[in-house]
């Protein structure tokens, strides 16, 4: 049985359709990156999964429990870090985690043990007695994370957990995510692509309330990138290089990527991805008497895929 099952989810805010038929399933132990531009529907989807909002139509189940009919059972299984990390500012870290545990029905030695464990995991030991309103953004984020992990949930949903953190803190938080993701289902909402590439094995890209891509992080770039791109760097004349490359069958219009003196770098893609594309380019360059400085295939990144799939469409503009 899939851990999370979402079928044709729709959500309207008044006349604005935030989600327009979102469907996906997620198995136990998967780490999913939920990507999309701001306002694409990421947070709305998470709010529906955590029972904070009801869907307008469609169905979502978590561990077999419907999010509307059996909301409390669903919420029991989820650890959630909402966007902007809301916390009870007047409490100390320790009091806050204690209250969170009590609200989840934890008590006694189990609560004490788990509290120690999450404080250790998120390296909050030194701040355990500090009032939350005195904490920096990075520490606040860790408190939110500790709260989400406190009850050893089967599913962890983190909405933009690294926004506003400095690079060191980002690395720390990612390490925590990888650590907990080893035996749990994790959904990481983000628009930071490198983060998703670093942490998640699977990616869903959402745009204008629809899923536009869903697959393994590594495959996705390959599938959506189109024809492979080559970077050709030569010493000599730009016009001659352009002309030579255009002669190649299936070549795209060459694009100047870099120029320095008589040193030019051009990007060109060869449709149909012939195996000997690199050799063909090399031959073409040699035939017009230019000196080839460098030739490298440029692998499509998640960023390319993201930009290709989420460029503002007509009706959104």
């Amino acid at each position, binding site marked *: 049985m899939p851990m999370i099952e979402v079928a044709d989810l729709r959500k309207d805010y008044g006349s604005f359709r935030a989600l327009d038929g979102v469907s996906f399933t997620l198995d136990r132990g998967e780490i999913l990156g939920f990507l999309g531009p701001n306002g694409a529907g990421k947070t709305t989807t998470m709010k529906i999964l955590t*029972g904070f909002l009801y869907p307008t139509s469609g169905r979502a189940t978590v561990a077999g429990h419907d999010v509307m009919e059996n909301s409390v059972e669903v919420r029991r299984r989820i650890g959630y870090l909402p966007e902007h990390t809301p916390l009870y500012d007047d409490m100390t870290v320790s009091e806050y985690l204690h209250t969170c545990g009590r609200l989840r029905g934890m008590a006694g030695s189990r609560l004490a043990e788990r509290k120690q464990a999450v404080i250790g995991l998120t390296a909050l030991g030194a701040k355990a007695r500090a009032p939350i309103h005195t904490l920096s953004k990075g520490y606040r984020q860790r408190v939110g994370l500790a709260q989400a992990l406190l009850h050893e949930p089967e599913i962890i949903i983190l909405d933009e957990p690294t926004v506003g953190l400095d690079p060191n803190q980002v690395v720390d938080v990612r390490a925590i995510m990888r650590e907990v993701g080893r035996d749990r289902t994790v959904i990481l909402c983000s628009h930071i692509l490198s983060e998703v590439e670093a942490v998640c094995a699977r990616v869903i890209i959402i745009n204008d309330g629809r899923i536009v891509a869903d697959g393994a992080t590594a495959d996705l770039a390959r599938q959506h990138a189109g024809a492979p791109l080559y970077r050709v760097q030569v010493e000599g004349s730009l016009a001659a290089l352009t002309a030579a490359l255009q002669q190649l069958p299936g070549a795209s219009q060459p694009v100047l990527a870099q120029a320095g003196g008589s040193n030019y770098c051009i990007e060109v893609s060869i449709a149909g991805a012939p195996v000997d594309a690199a050799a063909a380019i090399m031959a073409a360059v040699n035939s017009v008497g230019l000196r080839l400085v460098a030739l490298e295939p440029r692998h499509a990144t998640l960023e390319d895929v993201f930009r290709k799939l989420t460029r503002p469409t007509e009706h959104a503009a």
Partner: protein
Amino acid sequence: MITIAWKELRSFLNSPIAYIFLIAFTGWLSGSYFVWGKVGQGLTFFSVGNTSLDVYFSLVPQAFVLLVPALAMRLWPDELKSGTVELLMTYPLRTWEVVCGKFLAGLALIALGLVFTLPVPWTVAIYGDLDWGPVWGAYIASLMLGGAFLSIGLFMGALCSEQVTAFIVTAAICLLFVLMGDTLINLFIPRGLHELSNALSFSARFNYLGRGVVDVADAFYFSSVTGVFLLLNCTVIESRKGV
């Protein structure tokens, strides 16, 4: 539910509002009773000249009209503004548990305020012959009145999600409930509505209860008002989830 109540009580005690409430409440009652006299009547302990505490407890509704909305106004708006409501509502808690927890925290503070007034009947009992029956009746009536006001304030906070608006609207509604049925007010409303106005009045029922006449109907009326507003509160919170 109890954990929610503790959490709210804690945050009450961490903020000045709880202390302002307690000091203002006891100050208002004792000040009016012993020093400057009840608003509009000028009656004090000394001018009444007997050991009945009727006048003392008749001060409770006017104090509550201003102070209970002040207590209630932060319970929801704080959570709605800071976004902690998203934490609370994604925890495995039922909406009514959250609403009742918040209500209980406020009620506990009101009860504490009433406990702080106990020295007054004690003092009177020392110097005179005090009939404790009506005194306990008045305490029960006060707590029920406070509960009703609190539930109205809690509901308004959830509805307006803005402290100041919630306070003003709640105070106005509470004042209306208190003034209804007053002879003076009845002069300004159509004769046909007098019966309704008398029936809905908080003051009349409060006074009956306060005389030690614990009428089931009066107690039931306060509980119903409280219950209805708590229920409305749950509905408002649920409706925020949208469909």
